[in-house]
């Protein structure tokens, strides 16, 4: 178990994303709805710094019963982190690339205790 201290929770307010460097590895952290997630900070597209991007709800189309479009809205359930290089969007709860869920960011196990976040950088999930 190579659990390492990553950040104090008060430096990662809910909701927000930050990048920490542990053993030369850039880890993207997201605090969302009471949960903390940790992923590789390298975008699967061209290698952009994903977690320096924007947290935003998935854009959803709203359809009426008759299948006409009523409009669009931001989801409050599915939140994405958007890579600032080209706009690739990832579901922060799974690390999956939203338009093609076969693509997933490397995820690291997270433990939160005593107001601090710890990440196991060697584990694979």
């Amino acid at each position, binding site marked *: 178990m190579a659990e390492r*201290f990553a*950040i104090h929770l008060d430096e990662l307010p809910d909701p927000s994303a930050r*990048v*920490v460097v542990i053993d030369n590895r850039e880890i993207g952290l997201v605090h969302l709805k009471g949960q903390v997630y940790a992923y590789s900070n390298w975008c699967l597209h*061209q290698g*952009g*710094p994903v977690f320096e991007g924007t947290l935003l709800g998935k854009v959803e189309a709203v359809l009426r019963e008759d299948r006409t479009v009523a409009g669009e809205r931001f989801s409050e359930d599915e939140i994405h982190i958007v890579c*600032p290089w080209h*706009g690739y969007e990832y579901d922060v709860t799974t690390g999956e690339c939203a338009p093609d869920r076969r693509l997933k960011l490397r995820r690291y196990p997270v433990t939160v205790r005593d107001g601090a976040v710890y990440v196991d950088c060697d584990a694979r999930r």
Partner: protein
Amino acid sequence: MATIVPERETFDTRRLLQHAAQQAKDRRFQDFLIIDVDCHHYETEAFAEIAEYIEDPVIRHMALASIQKGSSRPGIMPVQVGNQDMAGRITRYVRRKEERTEAGIPRDVVLIHRYMDQMGIDYTVLFPTPMLNLGMHPQVDVEVAMARAYAHWMCERILPNSERIRTMLYLPFNDPEESVRMVKEFGGRPGVVGFMVTSVRFAPVHHNRYMPLYRELEAANLPLAFHAAYDWTHGAMPQLNKFISVHALGFPFYNMIHIANFVINGILERFPRLKVLWIEGGLAYITFLMQRFDNEYMMRSSEAPLLKKLPSDYMRQMYWSSQPMERVRNDAMLEETFKMIKAETQLVYSSDYPHWDFDTPSVIYDLPFLSEAQKRRILGENARELFGIGLLEKGSAG
């Protein structure tokens, strides 16, 4: 101990592109010649300087008044409806104004060197951004005035400050005679490696009035580039309701119109040594056009009497910039595209940085079907031959 990367107080290109620098190091780009044939600046950020170079006093007055009104009011430069920045998701669009640069060097030069250094690029060919839509300006004399002012500004304020920045100057293509005058006047200036036509315009490139321009460029051995862009307001485009559609179709569309006229009217039969470069349409549209035209030419050769070979053969004489390379889950398709366009000699790497869909050099380097020699040609050698760029010692460029 973890290091917490500080939240960005000010935007910095070097920080944004730190991963590109790591890629360049991992792939040993320091051992490669890399020439980017398409990067951009936002010339409107230096518009006050450029406006001072406008020769016509009335148009200069109009331009200076336009600056005072600010960009929120209609002015001398056309403005497009669009969403290149994905509503702020591409953060550099909004935050670039925060970036601090050293005094005494033009801001554009500093910003361009920063992106080049991070990506491992040795030389770059610089183009404007808002001027990409100047071809739709209803006042041809304004297009001419802006083209000439921009050329003077570029040659006097930007190019002398960098040994690594080159340009293909904007041609006021709606005025063929003025375009010829531009080539004669600026074709020999240091750092000018060719001329560029913005594709968004309604100009038949095969018209007899353009033959003196092609003759002049061929004689001077200066490449002619067509730079794609979009326009949401004309033709069929207003039917499209999303920017993704306008961008995906618009960029190749305007290039395809000009390629069709160029090829079918035998311009390369008439000017066989004219070097033509097509910028920023991606790659997929090229093979679409090759197949379409070759198929129809076999039935309708009577409509293209100047041609002596298949349309695709003429297209394989042309040069193509690589970005935005369509990266889908189909390497076989991409490999076949490279073969069809003779990428080994005709494809030239382009980043399009800082625009939203830029490609790092790794996009070429990481392709599984290219040999080391082919990567070197596409990343730099093809462009060096196309432009005749004389090389600085590696590492001395600055």
